């Protein structure tokens, strides 16, 4: 089981290719918001960029806060998302300590599924998929519904 990490954000050029790829390939949107990874400048462009993405908590507070089971614990960290169960209450986003869950205007949550499809679009290798020690192999690698 692997998780998405962003260990080299000091190399980031702010092109948003990762966010756009996630929105395009995973969520079928043109967006830099409805994505599992979002890039923000950390106080103006001169201070560089940060990635807002799921840090693969285990246990995940967003899953604990979800009242329906739309967010459930993913083996190795993070969550599996079942959109059909989501009632758009926004509790997941409020529970996330690092602002990794994006809510649309109608409270539709978007979070990283740790699928890794953004990684290849980073021109400076800021992102990496890393194995989680002790986690089971790729059993739930697809990360559930988007």
């Amino acid at each position, binding site marked *: 089981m692997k998780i998405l990490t962003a260990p080299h954000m000091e190399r980031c050029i*702010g092109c*948003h*290719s990762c966010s756009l790829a996630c929105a*395009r*390939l995973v969520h079928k949107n*043109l967006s830099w918001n409805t994505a599992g990874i*979002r890039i923000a400048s950390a*106080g*103006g462009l001169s201070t560089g960029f940060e990635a807002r993405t799921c840090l693969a908590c285990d246990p995940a507070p967003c899953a604990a806060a979800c009242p329906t089971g739309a967010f459930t614990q993913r083996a190795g960290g993070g969550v599996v998302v079942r959109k059909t169960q989501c009632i758009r209450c926004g509790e997941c986003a409020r529970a996330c300590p690092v602002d990794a869950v994006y809510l649309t205007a109608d409270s539709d949550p978007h979070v990283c599924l740790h699928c890794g499809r953004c990684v290849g679009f980073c021109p400076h290798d800021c992102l990496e998929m890393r194995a989680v020690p002790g986690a089971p192999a790729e059993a739930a690698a697809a990360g559930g519904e988007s």
Partner: protein
Amino acid sequence: MIRDHFRVLHVELGTGRGEIVQVDGRDRCAGGSGLAALLFSTYGLPGAPWDDPRQPLIFAIGPLTGLFPLMSKTVCAFKSPTHDQYAESHAGGRSALSLRFADLDALVVTGRAPTLSCLCVGSRRIELKDVHFMRGFDIHRTGKLFRRMFPGAGHRSILRIGPAGESLSAMACVIVDTYRHFGRLGAGAAMGAKNLKGIAIQGDASFPLPQGKDYPKLFQEVYRLLTDTEMMTKYHNLGTAENVIVLNEIKALPFRNLQCTSDPAAAAISGEAFAAKTLLRNAACAGCPVGCIHIGFVREKFMDPNQYLYRQVSYDHEPVFAVGCMLAVTDPFAALSLMEEADGVGLDVMSAGVALAWATEATEKGLIGTAETIVPLRFGDAAAYRNAMGHLARRENEFYALLGAGTLKAARRFGGEDFACVLGQEMAGYATGEVFFVSQALGLRHSHLDAGGYAFDQKQKEKDVVKAVDFLIADESSRCLLTSMVACLFARGVYTEARIAEALASVGYTGLAAAVGPVSAHIQRERWRVRVATGYRPEEICIPKRFREVVTWKGPVDAEYLERLQGEYSRRIRGMAEETPSPQSPASTP
């Protein structure tokens, strides 16, 4: 988002109210440059002066913005203080994607705000905020406050002016997201005339993508070409500053107010030297994985014994040419400090550098002195030029007010027209010969990017006027298509006409895709029609004597060839402007 019309937000600053306008014409004007010309035809007043509050300030994106890589630029159109005629200036940063995600094909601003103000727009927001307390603020302080006032880090664009824009200098630029600029032809003054210190664009909407396999497949192909091949290496590696050595070696690098076209000192301010000594990192426009923005640093001791501050400054070939080569400032850090100063006060660094180069030569020749320049100007004296930048931005006296209106205007008052390096506006950093000089002097944006005249000079040896002008017209037409999408022109090798048509079709613009050739020709004509309607007389453009004295690797410039080129290009421009659309042109299709 993908629609057969344009969704335009028109904001009237006098009232602070906005209106969403549906504008027809997608299949004949495309977007970007074409849309800007269309909107100026609707909102502009060709005969009224540039600073008439009713004149529009237009920002337009294209049908492919955000959908494909490097479709990352915005076209700004306005009536220019430089020549009181229609003008375009282009910039990237996050402006294009922010407009896309604000669900706007264009923003049109008219009127004048009652107090110095900042306009904030988004997909669900229109707000005009009083910022009178920011009068005179430099662009750094302005940016910091705007970031606090308008949240959305990373997904918003902040356009702002400095003191130069507030003082209505024709050399004032609009700074976009700190490192990019609507640099030329005085866009900053057009904003200042509206009492607008800044515009914050919040990109807060998302859109469903077109169904089918064509779009993802083509996206992948384009992305691979841009990132896995050598096509963009130059821009990612040394950046356009790579040109310094190349041009110096072929005697085509303007140095010391174009008194010469090469200098051994060029090596000290080459792209290689900047990279080795000053380069901190690269940055990118949103939606572009190339990362051509090169950011260097300047360090300044502000207190003894060892108290320093540092600033980050973006550099390219053009600023290096303007404040490095033209002013003979051959220390990279000193050149960066001048770029930083120009940025801070909101001056177009190209125009400012070239103007101060003329002022320095005029000083050497005794035409002006410190009564005019306040600080004594000498080639190579970066400290003096830093001071002069502030005077120029604030139009400190009659001399700087005239110089800020344009070098030729100051030269007409004080003498020295012969050596004013002006080609429609202050020259760009190429002295490749006759075709480039005429291309910039007469081109719609008076930019080296209007057409590849500099490349034609380097490739063609014969002096064939018709062939040269045919090239300029055809190249301009192909660039019109790119700037209507709105692509970064660095990607012109990837975005051929066929690939643009394919891209348009893949996302559902089938009508536009089927007519890209006629559409680009139509846009080209429309831009010229609008420009001529605002008073442009290409045959009256003055190309100063200095350009006829230039010696390049090909030998001395041929003044007679230059004159014939100007005559023929003027005739062709007038022809395009006056051409009636044919029955087959996209203008007449329903």
